């Protein structure tokens, strides 16, 4: 992945940087981020179901950061970077990459698998929603930063020229 930011954040491409948001780990701000993503994904050219998928995945990832990385503290920093990434192959379309960064403790990757759905019980659904909604879901630790990278690709016929 190419470097694009002085804080060690690396996005997949130096081109196509679309949006950066900085927010505190306050659940009251989740609706603000959802609003921004709903508009961004619409302008990007996603279908209504895919707009909801991307918005849902980012919302769930932010919820996990607030609950598990910051243990409910509402004053901790979160950064979100959105960028256009190139197609995976010659017959596919561009994608939207979202990188979420927090300063919480490192996460055990084994806890990022999610739970089985064959038991009816509350909790543990967020990771499942994220994996179902996105084409790429990655986690890595860079220095003192947790980085969650989510990518959703446009359907080839739906690629927008707006952005």
């Amino acid at each position, binding site marked *: 992945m190419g470097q694009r930011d002085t804080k060690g954040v690396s996005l997949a491409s130096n081109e196509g940087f679309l949006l950066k948001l900085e927010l505190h780990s306050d659940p009251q701000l989740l609706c603000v981020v959802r609003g921004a993503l709903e508009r961004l994904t619409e302008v990007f050219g996603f279908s209504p179901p895919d707009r909801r998928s991307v918005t849902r995945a980012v919302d769930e990832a932010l919820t996990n950061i607030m609950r598990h990385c910051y243990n409910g503290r509402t004053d901790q920093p979160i950064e979100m970077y959105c960028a256009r990434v190139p197609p995976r192959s010659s017959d596919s379309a561009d994608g939207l990459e979202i990188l979420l960064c927090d300063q919480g403790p490192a996460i055990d990757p084994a806890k990022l698998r999610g739970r089985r759905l064959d038991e009816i019980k*509350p909790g543990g659904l*967020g990771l499942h929603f994220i994996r179902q909604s996105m084409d790429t879901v990655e986690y890595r630790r860079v220095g003192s930063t947790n980085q969650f990278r989510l990518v959703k690709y446009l359907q080839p016929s739906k690629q927008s020229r707006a952005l």
Partner: protein
Amino acid sequence: MQISARHSDQTTIFDVSGDIDLANSPEVRKALLREVREKRTPRVVLNLSNVRYIDSSGVASLVEGLKASRDLNLRFILFGLSPSAREVLQLSRLLKIFEVYDNEDQALSS
């Protein structure tokens, strides 16, 4: 998010509006569990027609309400699901677990 209750003959209908997410799902959970566990209302109905978005914590609250109802042999009904709400219940394979109707008339006549 706002939640209010209407009561009639052995039934409580909760009208919920706005998004249900981490910021307010505890309020929904509290209202549902009080109605089921403390009041033991025979039929609890959730009107979700003005709810545009439900996250996993909101789904968890609904599951808790459903499980508490089943434990006490009470009914727990949803109606008016938005596309987003329907999607999350499908993704979590819970859509067939809940009693779901399109509108209030269907829910109350069931």
